């Protein structure tokens, strides 16, 4: 390390912010980032994060992995024939950095606007009480978020009596496997996300997911996913129906 690290990781909004800092500090060319060096410096900071109780630490670790992957790809020999232009492994990262920088700059503008608006206080009118409004507190204006919060709040207070009426749900792996089989029998394919919407409790979701894994192992089902974190498409496997 060429420069003392007297900077706290908590200063950074995330891994991209840290990378922008390192680039600026070392006056690096953003189009030609020395990936080995920046990965090394980055890792030092992430090492510090382990001691810090930083709740975005996971995002820093993920970026560290990305940097190491890019570094490895840069070491691969180029196509010897040279008939196909190989994309610089850093391109995606550069684009991310530049895009983030645009909004980081915009955030500064917002901060300035906030500061200039600070001394002004809006007039807050006394609550309007029209004759037909007998109700107590009139909410200024209702957003969907208020509806969510209210329902969540009501549900929290209501949970106690509810458990008295409803017996504890007992759901077993084989029940859920049977349920999946019957669905696949009629439908052929099931979307995992749609499937989840049928279940009210986390427990059932977890058990169902385990059932899918189990059926996948015994090749009763196949699962396809187009990209990471995308919906799972469940269909019949080679051993479907043979238990």
């Amino acid at each position, binding site marked *: 390390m060429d420069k003392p690290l007297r900077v706290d990781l908590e200063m950074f909004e995330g891994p991209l912010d840290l990378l922008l800092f390192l680039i600026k500090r070392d006056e690096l060319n953003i189009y030609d980032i020395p990936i080995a060096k920046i990965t090394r410096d980055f890792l030092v900071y992430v090492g510090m994060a382990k001691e810090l109780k930083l709740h975005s630490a996971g995002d820093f670790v993920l970026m560290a992995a990305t940097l190491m992957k890019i570094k490895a790809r840069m070491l691969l020999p180029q196509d010897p024939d040279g008939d196909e232009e190989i994309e610089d492994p850093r391109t995606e990262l550069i684009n991310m950095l530049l895009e983030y920088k645009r909004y980081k700059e915009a955030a500064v503008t917002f901060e300035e606007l906030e500061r200039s608006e600070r001394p002004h206080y809006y*007039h807050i009118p006394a609550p309007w009480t029209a004759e037909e409004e007998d109700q107590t507190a009139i909410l200024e204006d209702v957003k969907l978020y208020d509806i969510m919060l209210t329902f969540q709040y009501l549900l929290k207070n209501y949970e106690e009596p509810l458990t008295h009426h409803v017996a504890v749900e007992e759901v077993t792996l084989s029940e859920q496997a049977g349920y999946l089989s019957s669905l696949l029998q009629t439908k052929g394919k099931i979307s995992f996300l749609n499937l989840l919407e049928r279940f009210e409790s986390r427990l059932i979701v977890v058990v169902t997911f385990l059932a899918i894994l189990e059926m996948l192992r015994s090749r009763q089902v196949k699962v396809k996913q187009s990209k990471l974190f995308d919906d799972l498409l469940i269909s019949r496997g080679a051993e479907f129906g043979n238990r």
Partner: protein
Amino acid sequence: MGIADLKQIVEALLIASPEPLTDARFRACLKDEATNIPLADIISELETDYTKSRRAFEIKKVASGFQIVTKSEFEPYIKGLFSKAGKLRLSQAALETLAIVSYRQPVTKNDIEAIRGVSSDSSLRTLLDRKLLEIRGRDEGPGRALLYRTSTEFLQYFGLNTVKDLPKLREVEDILSEEQDELL
């Protein structure tokens, strides 16, 4: 500090205060520039100004302090601000009822009251009047109670296509349970 300056300060406080201005609060805002003039005296000076310049508002003394209100003669116009076409303004009771119907529909009055723990007739009426709810069919159960659900207007207001587009409880929890991210 002269009364002219104090008048301006009191006016600013009246305009910005979310609740009626009390003598104690007024003094707390003044800090170093303390004065012996009672708030009521400054208020009465301001009132004279407002009458002279034919302002549309006046200062009202309520139990807890002073606040600026519009003169009653303008009420017919002000009503228009709060008419149905405007923003959604609901009481806490109506909001609770609306929240239950949104997430549990179709639902009977009994179901709603079981969750809220209080009678919900008047909030149901308000919500029906404002066309946020509608009655659709009857319960299959023995009482054949009326079933309530949200209206198309409700969906439009929140920019939703169908009831299914409401934030799911799972999503609600995601948003509400930040901070609990695991630490490294």
